[in-house]
């Protein structure tokens, strides 16, 4: 049966994610031991581990969000099992290629692979850079097919304006857009856009790689593309998690199902704009970047917190405050996960203030803000999703 197949592949996704998470954590611990002087790694080993750790962590939480969204989407529209499998296969192959380029090839240009560093690494093998770019290409193709497929399935049932829930901005809408569909659509637009930017970025990398010195990229353009892709995919990973929360939190807490209201519709439509423009906050210390874009970066980063706090987080508060709930591991993990996002988000808003960024940019403040988001938020979400009622990993995996 379709739902059993979907349950099984989602379980495979979760197990894959948790396995890769453990490997990444080990690399993280090794890095910290090295920085603390307890073990001694060569710089190349340290930095190639750093590259592996960073990219694997971001990748696994992204695919975990996608897998969870794919699973829940089946409640509303038919999803393609074949595409789900393709995405899994491409992800595993891509990760293995990435790990080969770093562990064996000693590629060590960091998870940001900031142009032109991948081309100017001493100490890496000559094939490592090409294999690294190829690994990102494989991952990107798999994820692009997956996100386009999911969006296509949504659009087969809902019109474009319904996916944006515009009918909810008027009184008494005839068709209801579930919050899950609204958020997933908004998020998938961001995902597809940033993956397309990654296609352009990779094409420019390949063009220079194969040009024998006849084509040199513009460092500012490459930086903008890199951070548009990188920031947006990390941000969207979070919002995939929020789609799951909107769908499941009320269910696992015994509360009435959340519905799309005019302010939910408005908040998420604005969120799309803010998400696509916040990435400029990665270029604050590039003073040649047009000033207007720097200001857009700070304003978009600030404003993105408004719908997040005023709609999403406040809705969680309303659902819980002075309300008798049968607290279990599942709904407690959701609740604590949201708290983790909020705390990481506070650090993010502080860092996205340009005058603060002068002393915070590229310091430990940065992983300090995203670790609560990934470790606390997404990890709890994935554990939650696996143990909670819809998937119940313990029952599915024999």
């Amino acid at each position, binding site marked *: 049966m379709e739902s059993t197949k979907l349950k099984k592949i989602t379980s495979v996704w979760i197990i894959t994610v948790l396995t890769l998470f453990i490997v990444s954590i080990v690399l993280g611990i090794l890095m910290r031991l090295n920085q603390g002087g307890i073990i001694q790694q060569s710089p190349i080993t340290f930095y190639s581990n750093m590259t592996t750790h960073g990219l694997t962590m971001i990748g696994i939480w992204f695919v975990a969000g996608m897998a969870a969204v794919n699973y829940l989407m089946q409640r509303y529209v038919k999803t393609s099992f074949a595409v789900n499998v393709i995405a899994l296969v491409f992800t595993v192959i891509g990760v293995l290629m990435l790990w080969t380029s770093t562990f064996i090839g000693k590629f060590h240009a960091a998870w940001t692979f*900031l142009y032109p560093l991948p081309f100017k690494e001493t100490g890496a093998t000559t094939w490592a850079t090409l294999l690294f770019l190829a690994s990102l290409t494989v991952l990107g193709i798999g994820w692009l097919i997956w996100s386009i497929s999911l969006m296509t399935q949504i659009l087969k049932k809902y019109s474009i304006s319904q996916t944006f829930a515009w009918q909810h901005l008027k009184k008494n809408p005839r068709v209801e857009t579930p919050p899950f569909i609204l958020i997933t659509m908004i998020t998938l637009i961001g995902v597809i856009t940033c993956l397309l930017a990654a296609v352009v970025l990779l094409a420019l990398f390949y063009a220079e790689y194969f040009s024998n010195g006849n084509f040199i990229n513009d460092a*500012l353009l490459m930086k903008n593309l890199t951070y548009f892709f990188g920031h947006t995919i990390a941000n969207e990973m979070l919002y995939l998690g929020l789609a799951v929360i909107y769908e499941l939190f009320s269910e696992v807490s015994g509360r009435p199902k959340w519905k799309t209201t005019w302010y939910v519709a408005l908040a998420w439509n604005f969120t799309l704009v803010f998400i696509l423009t916040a990435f400029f906050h990665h270029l604050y210390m590039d003073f040649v970047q047009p000033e207007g874009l720097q200001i857009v970066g700070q304003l978009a980063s600030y404003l993105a917190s408004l719908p997040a706090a005023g709609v999403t987080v406040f809705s969680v508060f309303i659902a819980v405050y002075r309300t008798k709930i049968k607290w279990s591991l599942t709904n407690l993990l959701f609740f604590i996960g949201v708290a983790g996002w909020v705390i990481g988000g506070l650090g993010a808003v502080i860092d996205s203030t340009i005058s603060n960024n*002068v002393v915070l940019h590229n310091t430990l403040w940065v992983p300090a803000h995203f670790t609560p988001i990934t470790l606390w938020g997404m990890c709890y979400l994935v554990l939650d999703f696996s143990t909670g009622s819809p998937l119940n990993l313990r029952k599915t995996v024999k």
Partner: protein
Amino acid sequence: MQQQSILLLFLAIAGIAAFVFTYIFVSSKKATQAAQGMSNPLKKRFWFSLILFVILGIFATATIPNSPYYLFANETPAKVVHVSARQFEFILSKKAIDPKNPSGEDNIELPVNKLVEFRVTSLDVNHGFAIYNSSLRLITQVQAMPGYVNRLRYKFKEPGKYDILCLEYCGMAHSFMRSSFIVK
């Protein structure tokens, strides 16, 4: 110092957030079946969002004019230092640096309480030109990018030795990439 005020701000608001989440959780644990939940949720949501918007507006208005792009923008620098970064050194010079034959000066000296402009570029990959005071506290920075010159303006209020550390990962010897200058 700026880092301390930022840390205090973060601890304060994170503390408030943690308190609010705990308070709400405890209110649920204490609730009976007949508990009414939150009264006037839409009104409270509106005020919460409005207050947040006003706070963000105040921070944006107060901080954006202090962005490095605007500081000392209308003044003429008393000293200009040219900086070319490359794997794995900073080349500093009072004269423009020829990228084909880059060379610099040791023992750069800069005036205290006067406007200094660093014109920073890179000869290979992105580096981070980050200045630290004698307590090794980061006081300012700018990116060193290939093909571009970023201009960093600063007034040093204290005399002494200042260190430059690379603050953009640039390859295997990134952590050894440093330089220094004196402010008198």
